[in-house]
């Protein structure tokens, strides 16, 4: 799944004939961020629909057992753990490598890395995850390694592209004022790159939450287990609930990451 890239903004060199209204802070916040309300609304809608659906059904004992809160929450905890661990690993690896690649010395490697990273979007994370099971063993550790590997290139690619877009003139200005390349990196480039890094976090999270649903196929649990059981037991009700829960969790996490991203971007101007 691709990274939601920054929206492209058109040139705005209009004649200054438009009026400027002073709005209350709340109204301004609302106009800037009203889209943030859409997602939670969808999540609530989906979950509400599910709840109503399930409550109108007579669940048999198998369904009741699978959908028991203890079972669902256990799997959810596993799921979040998988996603969190792999995301941390991805960030620890991909961000420093991305920064290294954006150094002047590594500029030449950048192009090929971006090209390979782009092409590797076609490499299925599901396949990478399963291959890990052959290399190691079934289980959580293997799943975390597989998830990390699968998300590595996309996040690396995103980081490199993001760093490329950091305003080159500012870096030049810093160098022009006599900052060493090291000072420029730590005092100009990295602070400017914070939004990029946060965006990378979001991409990694979304990818890993998604791929973690497949971890159940190598015995690492997670919410995918619900789908697998539903398919195995041929229980439509469980299937719908499982799909709904997974979707809601993924959307919620992406939403949280999105909010965090916006806060960080707003802070760093």
């Amino acid at each position: 799944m691709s990274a939601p890239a920054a929206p492209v903004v058109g040139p705005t060199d209009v004649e200054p004939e438009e009026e400027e209204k002073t709005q209350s802070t709340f109204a301004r916040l609302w106009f800037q961020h009203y889209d943030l309300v859409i997602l939670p609304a969808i999540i609530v809608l989906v979950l509400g629909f599910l709840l109503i659906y399930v409550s109108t059904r007579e669940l048999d004992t198998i369904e009741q057992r699978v959908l028991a809160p203890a079972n669902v929450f256990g799997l959810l905890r596993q799921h979040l753990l998988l996603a969190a661990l792999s995301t941390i690993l991805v960030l620890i690896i991909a961000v420093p490598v991305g920064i290294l690649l954006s150094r002047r010395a590594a500029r030449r490697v950048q192009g090929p890395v971006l090209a390979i990273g782009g092409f590797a979007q076609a490499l299925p994370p599901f396949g990478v995850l399963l291959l890990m099971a052959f290399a190691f063993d079934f289980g959580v550790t293997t799943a975390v390694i597989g998830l990390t590997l699968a998300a590595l290139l996309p996040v690396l690619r995103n980081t490199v592209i993001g760093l490329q877009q950091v305003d080159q003139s500012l870096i030049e200005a810093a160098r022009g004022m006599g900052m060493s390349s090291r000072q420029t990196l730590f005092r100009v480039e990295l602070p400017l790159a914070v939004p990029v890094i946060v965006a990378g976090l979001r991409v990694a999270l979304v990818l890993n939450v998604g791929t973690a649903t497949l971890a159940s196929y190598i015995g690492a649990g997670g919410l995918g287990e619900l789908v697998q059981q539903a398919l195995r037991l041929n229980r439509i009700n469980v299937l719908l609930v499982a799909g709904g829960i997974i979707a809601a969790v993924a959307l919620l996490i992406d939403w949280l990451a999105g909010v965090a991203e916006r806060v960080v971007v707003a802070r760093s101007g």
Partner: protein
Amino acid sequence: MNYLDYLASNSQQILFLTQAHFLVVLIAVGVGSAISIALGLALSTGEPDPPRLSFDWFAAGIREGGLVFTAALLTVPSLALFALFLPFTGLGVTTAVVVLTIYTLYTVLRNTVAGLTTVDRAVLESARGLGYSRIRRLLTIQLPLAWPVILNGIRVTTLISISIAVVGAVVQGPGLGILLINGISRIGAANSFYQVLTGTLFCLVVAAVFEIFFAIVQRLTVPRGIRV
């Protein structure tokens, strides 16, 4: 039995699954792109900042809402979407195609909108000034100029779809995912590793075919004056 032997003795099955994979992605991307481009064109406003409460303003609102919605769909894990559609569209090709199509929407729509709205304002303004009607402007100026961006969106969404399509095997969709499911369920048995490996790597083969295809399409359809 080494890998090459495996490939040789199963070449027919592998070829068949690769073709199926290719076709499923092709159909989904084709349908999804058609929907997205049509939507992008229908909701295009020509100007980035339409005045409040005009038709354009509503169109812009629907467009932005559509982008947020399709972007959200893209973050839903594929397994969940396959599970949610299964009761309605059944096991097999239909579910796979429908879900894949949904995943293609966002990238193409985003690039269509971006491509159409970032056309140089001076160009649009002079087109208006020379008496181009709105439709003519959209189809003969904005669309050709946005086309490279749109085409790139289709390309990226194709690559993503190739990797998502393997999950379709969970709901008995066609394609290379079948090798993955077979392999993992027979882990330890002969060739199970090769199956998973093939299912994964041949996605790149499918991707390579598409990349060549897109390079040709780009060569043929991007107007000469804006080719890089």
